[in-house]
Structures are given as C-alpha cells and as structure tokens.
C-alpha cells in the first residue's frame, strides 16, 4: 500500500485477557478526514480495539501506524499527545459545573484559562462561544450541565474533546442513550465536525446509523476484521451475515431431556414499576433462557427470586407450594442458587482463598460443634475441585489469581456444594474463553440431569438459542414473548427485546 494513504493503520493487533482471545490479528485502516464505522455484535472486540488505540489497554502484538509511521501508544497520555481522543460510553462530565467549565476542565488544553488552579470563568466562556460558533453548536456555555438533555451533554463531551484539537476522535457507542430524534440531531452535528477536518472512528452495533454517518465501515467478528466496505455499498442482509457469521447454534451441547414436573411457577409477580406482572413456569430438567437489553428487568427478576428484593404483588410457587423468600438465607434453604453477573463484585470473596470461597455457602455441613472442621473442609473442597476439574495449585491460592473460567467454576462449585434446586445464572459465560464456556454448558447439563431447573440470562443470543429449551424475552420489566429453543432466531429475539 502507498505511504500516507491512511491516517491510521492498525496492523495484526492481537489481545488476550487471561487465555481469552479478544482480538486475533485484526486490521483497521482509516483514511484522513473520514468517519470510519466500526461495526460488530456485543463482544466482537470493538471496545478493546478502541482502547488499544487510546492507550488504555496494552496490545499483545501488532503495530499502530500514524501517517505511515509506527507509533507506540502505551498510555492514554501518549495517545492524547498524538491527537487521539476517546469519548467514553460513560461521559465523565461534571453535572454541577457549567458547560464552559466542563469543556476546559482539563488543564492541559486550557492552561491559559486556568488562574491559581481555578478555571478562569469569563475566558472559558469566551473560548467556548468561539468553539460553538465554529461547530454551530446551539449551546449556552453558562448553563449548568445537569440542566441539559442527554444529547446536549453528549455534545459537551465532544466539545471538550475537540478543544484539544484531536486528529482522531474515537466515539464508542455515542448514541446508546439517545432517543431517535436526539440521535438524528447528534449525527448531523458529527457531519459538521467532520467538515473541520477531524477524522472519526465511530463504534456502533447499529447498522442504520452507520449508513447515515460513516464513509466506510469495518465489520469485525470474534476479534477479526471480516470486511471493510464503503457505505454506499452496504447491503443490510450481507452485513448482518458478516456480523453474525456462520450459523453457530450447532456448537452448543444442548440436551433435550423428557418433559418433567413443574418446579417453579411465577404468577403476576411485580416489583414496583421495575417488574410488571411476570408469569412463567420452570420445569425440572429444563433450561429457561431470559433475553432482554440491560435495564429490561432481567436481573431484578433474579434478585427477587433470590430474596434480595421484595415483590409488591404476585406469587411464587416452588413445587406447587407458595414461597416468600425474604432473605438470601431463606432462598438458599429453599434450593435457590444465584450466580451473579459480575462475579468479581458480588460472587466471590476476592482476596480469600479458593477453599474459603467454595465452602462459604454451606458452612453448616463442615461445622462440628461450634468450629469449622478444617480437615473436612479441605477434603470436600478438593473433591469439588476434582469433580469440576478446576485448575488450582493449592487450596490457599487466592481466588483472584485464577483465570475467569476457573473463577466461574469455583462459584459453581460453591453452589454444587449446597443442594440447589433452581439455579439462577446471570451471564454465566460472559468473558470466558471457549473451552471454559463448553465446561460451563456441560455443568449446566449435569444439573438438569439430576432434575434441577436453570434460569439463565445471557446477552449472547446464540448461546441462549443453543442451550435453552425455552426463551423468555423481556422489555421494560415485562415479558414480551416466549420462544421455543428450536424456533428462536436472533432476529426474533431482537425484535421482541426492543419493541
């Protein structure tokens, strides 16, 4: 390729977290002055790639070239000095400060605006007005940011980035929180910014908006670039195929066990406005999937069943008997097991040993008199480690030193140690490498083989379709549809989840 043709080139970039390969020799070429779309499903590696470019994540291998010259972007500071600025999914703005103060809050590009450690208010407002005139932003620099709408706050964040005179602006899902109207408005603004000569990398999983805004789009899947297409040649069907890849539901080791008795029934269960009249049944030996966007009430549902939240109305029946788990302890006694979404935040005692984590759910079983029987605790912990094939050197090893897959197995081990009847799993395979995923699926199979029921939340739709016997789709706290595993498709679920 000719030198200077591309402003930015990322060549053969690879990145693994633990053994989980997130980026696999991915390539990205961005022309000067273009808005370059980066399109892919959740978990395809878009954000990791952007973070590497932004210096927030270190790459394992590959190289980055700016104007044809290799650069080392190993810190955020380095990226900024090279003119690479990223606007985060979370905006990092200060609601109590004015628009102008927010824009010039970073001393490095507003040094002349700072006097005695304070932002010089009038000078900042003047600068902001100049910037807004240039960008045609209809914003009042004196306004407090908390009084602005989301789209306007977004613009504040962008104005702040532009005040630093960036060469490349990275926008990571900037429209995620915007309404349709706001999005349209926001995209028009970006087009105007583009005319000032800024090159943009626009990350999105929405094809429609990329068609409106981008000049070219790179589609990535499973950490690899699969195609770079000029926007005028974007065909929806083809792009979706590129994003989704081959039909993958055949790789999930699902088990169809004969129909069994009802295990759990929910009758019009509500929690305030968050969960509205949820009714469904779960059978023995069944895996029930729950799909829905973040905020759809999926996690609230799990928490309510586990006694963490109190229902305001409705009934829960376990094997035909009404139950009202008021505390976690009661829920566990009734046979509920809960594997939370963020295992490091909730599920594990991070700086405790593997053994302490495993035995924490059922101390009664290893207690003799008033003391924990250390020998018995050890024996049982090793038994579980062997049975789940967890890669552990010693029981005293701190849990945080294990890989994600092994940590997740420890959590499952701790629930196998108890006597679970209904397993509530929130994103059980998120962030795990493939081999660990396969392990988790097979552990689920073993649970249903012994008659337990599993309710599984997952954002990985192919996993839900591949593993679950039925899938409930939630939206705004209510169930909007139910699909059998063999009739479900990603398209059908997405429709039900976003209507």
């Amino acid at each position, binding site marked *: 390729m000719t030198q200077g043709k591309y402003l930015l080139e990322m060549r053969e970039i690879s990145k693994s977290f633990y053994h989980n390969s997130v980026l696999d020799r991915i390539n990205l070429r961005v022309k000067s002055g273009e808005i370059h779309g980066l399109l892919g499903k959740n978990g395809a590696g878009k954000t990791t790639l952007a973070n590497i470019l932004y210096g927030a994540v270190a790459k394992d291998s590959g190289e980055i070239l700016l104007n044809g010259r290799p650069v080392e972007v190993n810190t955020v500071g380095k990226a900024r000095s090279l003119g690479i600025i990223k606007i985060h999914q979370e905006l990092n703005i200060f609601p109590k400060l004015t628009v102008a103060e927010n824009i010039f809050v970073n001393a490095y590009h507003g040094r002349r605006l700072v006097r005695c450690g304070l932002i010089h208010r009038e000078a900042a407002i003047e600068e902001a007005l100049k910037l807004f005139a240039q960008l045609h932003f209809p914003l009042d620099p004196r306004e407090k940011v908390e009084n602005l709408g989301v789209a306007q706050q977004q613009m504040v964040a962008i104005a702040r980035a532009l005040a630093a005179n960036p060469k490349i602006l990275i926008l990571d899902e900037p429209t995620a929180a915007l309404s349709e109207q706001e999005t349209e408005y926001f995209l028009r603004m970006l087009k105007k910014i583009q005319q000032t000569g800024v090159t943009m990398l626009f990350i999105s999983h929405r094809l429609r908006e990329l068609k409106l805004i981008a000049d070219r789009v790179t589609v990535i899947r499973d950490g690899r670039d699969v195609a770079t297409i000029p926007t005028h040649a974007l065909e929806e069907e083809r792009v979706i195929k590129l994003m989704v890849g081959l039909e993958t539901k055949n*790789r999930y080791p699902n088990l169809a066990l004969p129909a069994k008795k009802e295990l759990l029934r929910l009758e019009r269960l509500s929690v305030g406005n968050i969960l509205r009249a949820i009714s469904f049944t779960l059978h023995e030996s069944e895996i029930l999937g729950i799909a829905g966007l973040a905020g759809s009430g999926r996690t609230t549902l799990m928490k309510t069943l586990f006694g963490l939240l109190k229902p305001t109305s409705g009934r829960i029946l376990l094997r035909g008997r*009404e139950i009202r788990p008021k505390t976690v302890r*009661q829920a566990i006694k009734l046979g509920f097991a809960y594997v939370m979404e963020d295992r490091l935040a909730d599920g594990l005692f991070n700086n405790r040993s593997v053994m302490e984590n495993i035995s924490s759910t059922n101390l009664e079983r290893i207690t003799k008199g008033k003391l924990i029987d250390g020998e*018995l605790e050890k*024996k049982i912990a090793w038994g*579980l480690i062997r049975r789940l094939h967890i890669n552990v050197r010693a029981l005293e090893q701190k849990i945080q030193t294990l890989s994600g897959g092994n940590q997740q197995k420890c959590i499952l081990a701790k629930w196998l140690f108890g006597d679970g009847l209904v397993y509530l799993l929130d994103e059980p395979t998120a962030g795990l490498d*493939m081999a660990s995923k*396969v392990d988790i699926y097979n552990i689920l199979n073993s649970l249903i083989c012994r008659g337990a029921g599993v309710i599984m939340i997952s954002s990985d739709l192919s996993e839900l379709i591949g593993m679950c016997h039925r899938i409930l789709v939630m939206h705004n706290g209510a169930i909007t549809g139910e699909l059998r595993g063999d009739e479900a498709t990603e398209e059908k679920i997405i429709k039900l989840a976003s209507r």
Partner: protein
Amino acid sequence: MFAAARQERIKELLLKHKQFDVASLAAMLGVTEVTIRRDLDKLEKEGFIIKTHGGAILKEDLPQPNLAERVPPEVIELGTAAALLVNNNEAIFLGGGLTCQQVAANLQTKQRLTVMTNDLQVALELNNALGVFCSVTGGNRLQGSGILVGDLALRAIEEVHFHKAILSVSGISFTSGYTANTVEEATFYRQLLTRCEELIIVADYRKFDKTGFSRIADLKAAQKVVTNKEVGDDYKEYYFRNNIKLYTPYEVEEIIEPDQTDQQQGGDGDDAGQISS
C-alpha cells in the same frame, strides 16, 4: 447423575482398603453422607459389601473381579452421557468396543429403538432390553474381541440408513483425525459414515492425542463428541469453533427429595420462607 461411576469408585476403594467409614467416603468423593449411604445400600444388595455401623467392609469370600477387566469409571460415565443423546423411535448404529458396550448398557429403557451393531458383546448387552430391536451385521470376528468386520459386515450395511452412528475410536488427534487400530475396522466405519445422518464419537479423554493404525475420518466428520471433562482445552476450543457439540459429563449430587429434608429445614426455627398449605 453418575451414581454408577461413584459406586464403581467406592468398590475400588474397598477392594484396596477392605473397609471404609461413611464420613471419609463422603469427603473423598465430595458428596453428602446421605448419598454415600444410598450407594452402600445398593452395594450391599449386590452382595459386594457388608454394612457396619458408620461404614462398610468388603465381603472377602466374594470372588473378586480382576481389576484389569473392570470398566474404568471414566468410561462408565460416558455410557450414561451418550445414552442421553439417543431418542426413542430412532434407528442407530452402535460400534464395537468396551465404550460402546457401556452405551448399550444404558439403552435398556428406550422404546422402539432399532440398534444395529458389529460387536457381539454390544448385542449381548441389549439381550434383555424389551424396547430395543437389535440386529448384528455379521462378518469376521477380530481376534480377542467380539467385533465383526470384513466383507460380510460391509454387505450388511449396504441398504440401511441410520439416524445416528455412535462409534468409539482408538485415537483422536488434530493431525490424524479419528483412527482405529485395524484397517478392517477403519474400512468398515468409513463406509458406515455414508449411511448415517449424524456421527457421535464416544471416547474417554485418554484417546486424545493418540493415533491408531488406520484413519477413519477427519475431526470435523462428527457432529457430537462425548468425552471426559479432563480432555485438553485445545480440543474443547476446536470443537466449539467448528460447530461440533462436545459433551463432557460432570458428577453432581442428586437432589434430596423434599420429604427427606423437611426435618432438617424445620430444625433451627427458621421458617425458610415456606408457607404451609
């Protein structure tokens, strides 16, 4: 689920140590004492042990089975797991060898199932299965086993069609695929693959990274693979990437029925969220 495998393990321990107490067995196998007691009940009924207070001792006068001939636990669990993939009303082919015999042993309760096999031992296993219609290929018997191969075996599958073929193999590796120990077996199984809709490979983890004498097929030829959880991560990843279902059984405790736990639950005065009806 894998009570059978656990009981085998208990037998092994007792053969070695002659006697054992319930608490130690429970701890070693990572299950509750209730589960162990149930296992011991079963082993006593089989006449293998005599239960004592808090434990069990080996029945010494019993003709002790030769350890070498007994089926290893990792193969036993594969039999249970693979049988879950077989449905009623199907026509399947079940290959030869110890692992396939274990699969056969777990097909006893299936209904209207047609099984063809090229192993006399497999056919024997299915002798008392009332819901299973069993036919044998014919052919030349491989020395030292009940496996039938050769022209007559090949002719038997000329005009049949199977929903599934369940085969065990001698070796599985990235470089040579699925392999058998003899050319005759490989030839027969290769032909069989053209007669079935789905290939299920059942092989314990020791068969991986091994190569037999004669090649049957590429790794991608199978739609499902049943093995032990100890198999290497590289294979787990490979099969997942290539849209092949990999089943590895895990041993988890059986659920204790609620009537048995009612007493324990009421024990500490906590109503456990239960509402009496």
